[in-house]
């Protein structure tokens, strides 16, 4: 199976995430779309890892280690981001990101 299939699948998932970030105003949905984009990249990294393993490279596992680190960063990001969203909700009783433009004054 060509690696291109995986590349196109990852691109499609990533672009769906981008569309979600641009189209929605609910902060939680935007956050979930960011997770979707991170996962598209992870899938691509794993596909390239398999590609290099097939080519006989012994260090192809490095790509999968990289995926672990992306998962770590995603988990930390979710913990802090959801705390921020909960605090915004507590103060404004809404998760609409348009309310956040009052930060500029």
């Amino acid at each position, binding site marked *: *199976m*060509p*690696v*291109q*299939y*995986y*590349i196109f699948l990852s*691109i*499609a*998932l990533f*672009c*769906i*995430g*981008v*569309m*979600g*970030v*641009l*189209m*929605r*105003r*609910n902060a*939680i*949905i935007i956050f*979930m*779309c960011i*997770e*979707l984009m991170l*996962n598209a990249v992870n899938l691509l990294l*794993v*596909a390239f*890892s*398999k*590609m290099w*393993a*097939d080519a006989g490279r012994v260090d*192809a596992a*490095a790509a*999968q*280690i990289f*995926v*672990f*680190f992306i*998962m770590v*960063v*995603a*988990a*930390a990001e*979710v*913990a*802090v981001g*959801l*705390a*921020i969203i*909960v*605090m915004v*909700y507590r103060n404004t009783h809404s*998760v*609409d990101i*348009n309310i956040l433009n009052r930060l500029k004054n």
Partner: protein
Amino acid sequence: MSTQQIIFLVLSAVALLSAMGVILSKNPVTSVLCLILTFFTIAGHYVMLNAQFLAVVHIIVYAGAIMVLFLFVIMLMNLNADIEPQKRNWLKYAGAISGGTLLVILVAALRDASMPTLQPGATDIGLIGNLGKTLFNKYVVPFEVSSVLFLSAMVGAVVIGKKED
């Protein structure tokens, strides 16, 4: 068409449809459930790509921890479709067109790239012994740094989430 290609097509179709469900559904809880389905299909892709341990970790971390956290916050806020903020229509179209343009450009740029074909045979690169050796031999410093990152995220979440007196 080989079995692998059939599995790939089915998993990809489910992944793309449920990803569309995430951004199109009005109810946030439906979005979360669609995203969990997407994560499970991505885990299926990992198994197909000989990353077995990564697939298990992916399910544990994403479906088990992160999405539960999302669901928890949504339930806590009692969000539903009625109070869902709506963007103006032309902004939605602009977002969809921008994302679609990105998709078209990336696909057009990579369509003619010459890439090798994945072999159907199994490799042991994604097994836990192999990954553990790589992680603790070559990447032990980033591993330790990520523990500091986790600690700071934990402290940050507690500090942000604390009620001010």
